[in-house]
């Protein structure tokens, strides 16, 4: 990995499309001293070295907002042009085909799979909220150096089902193997909250940035 190439040359664009409170994600980048701008500007989102799709709240509301602002098209174009995209929590869910959250809603369709609700009949508390262990499903540079007993902080009620197993890098056991970190080329998704996952979260943010912005394959 080339250290120089891993350094952001232009600010990272955190996509602002009017959902939830993403101040804590911005705080995390400030703590890590990684320059990032919160923006709704189509050109900035399209051309930033890395664009991040955050999100907390309801799937339907979020995908509607992406479509109403035209940001969905900008993201599609970015991905067509092979430029990196990082989705976090609800932002990750939006990148997939669909979600069954209070209905059946179509997502951006960048990746295969849909989000289904945890089964309360399995004796699980829903939402899946708290610290869960990260299990390595396959080798990938984004997870290199992660200890065996690393935990991440999750808050969600729907999990990825029917995803491409080749793309699932980290999972966490909660009734099923919940996909926690997925990567397909220059697209990365994190279901947990890296900004709330202590040193592990910060480590993974740095690794993902290094891989996506440093050109490591």
């Amino acid at each position, binding site marked *: 990995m080339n250290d120089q190439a891993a350094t952001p040359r232009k600010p990272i664009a955190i996509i602002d499309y009017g959902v939830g409170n993403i101040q804590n994600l911005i705080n*995390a980048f400030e703590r890590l001293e990684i320059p990032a701008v919160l923006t709704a500007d189509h050109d900035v989102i399209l051309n930033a070295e890395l664009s991040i799709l955050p999100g907390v709240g309801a799937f339907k509301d979020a995908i509607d907002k992406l479509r109403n602002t035209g940001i969905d098209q900008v993201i599609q174009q970015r991905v067509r042009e092979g430029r990196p995209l990082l989705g976090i929590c609800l932002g990750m869910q939006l990148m997939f085909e669909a979600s069954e959250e209070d209905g059946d809603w179509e997502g951006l369709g960048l990746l295969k799979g849909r989000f289904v609700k945890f089964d309360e009949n399995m004796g699980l508390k829903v939402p899946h909220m708290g610290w869960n262990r990260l299990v390595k499903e396959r080798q990938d540079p984004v997870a290199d150096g992660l200890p065996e*007993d690393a935990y991440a902080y999750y808050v969600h009620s729907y999990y990825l089902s029917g995803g491409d197993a080749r793309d699932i890098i980290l999972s966490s056991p909660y009734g099923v193997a919940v996909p926690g970190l997925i990567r397909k080329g220059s697209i990365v998704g994190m279901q947990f909250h890296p900004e709330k996952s*202590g040193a592990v979260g910060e480590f993974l943010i740095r690794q993902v940035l290094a891989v996506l912005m440093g050109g490591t394959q």
Partner: protein
Amino acid sequence: MLAKRIIPCLDVRQGRVVKGKRFQAIEDVEDPVVLADRYCREGADELVFYDITASAEDRGIFDEVVRRVSKVVNIPLTVGGGIATVEDFTRVLMAGADKVSVNTAAVRRPELIREAALKFGAQCVVLSVDVSKVGPDRWEVVVKGGRETTGMSALEWIKQGVALGAGEVVVNSIDQDGVRKGYDVEFLKQVTAAVNVPVIASGGAGALEHFEEAARVADVDGILAASVFHYGDISIGDLKSYLLSHGVAVRPLDHRFDRAAAGAAEAAGAAEQGGN
């Protein structure tokens, strides 16, 4: 499987952390940002900040504390104290809270729980209940920091709160609070059996085995304590080692990994300088 959460609780008045034994003889401890940062590094899994301010004008000072703390910590932050309206939720969430806990105001007007859950999601709404044992198998809700009884069954109120949309319950035993004789395991067992949301034990921590008892016997999801941490009687690192060695799943504090993260930070810093 989820790790059992260890949660230091910080009561804040006029911008400072305080801890009252049985809610009296309040004693000043330390700067909230300094304490929050220390607990975070020691391995706390979450922090709770309660605003115990008496007046409305001090509310701005508290919000500023939350804002400063949220910039420093990289773990979840729950905020409570004086939350009476949906606007109060918005106010502290905007300041950087991840979850908001309601107590007395929800007893007065239970609909607050529903309104907040609809607007922010159940995962955001924590129902904090002060309970006192009044009979052989009877626990009742008390309000105003334990100064006023309500006659309500604590277990029924907790069930109602969860049905209204509370995504987590903190059970604070005021009989045990500050006495350091252990959590009210008897009542906590009833609560964890009755609701399908995370239950946090609060009030009574004095020794390592009290935490183990709450985790194993009552099967709570998180364990909250204040004075034993503030006064340094129990360190979070020692507590987690103890719990791990007694078969309780907690998020381990991995110093090797902390160094790895620090190393990555240094490497990134060096790369940045090299790039300029």
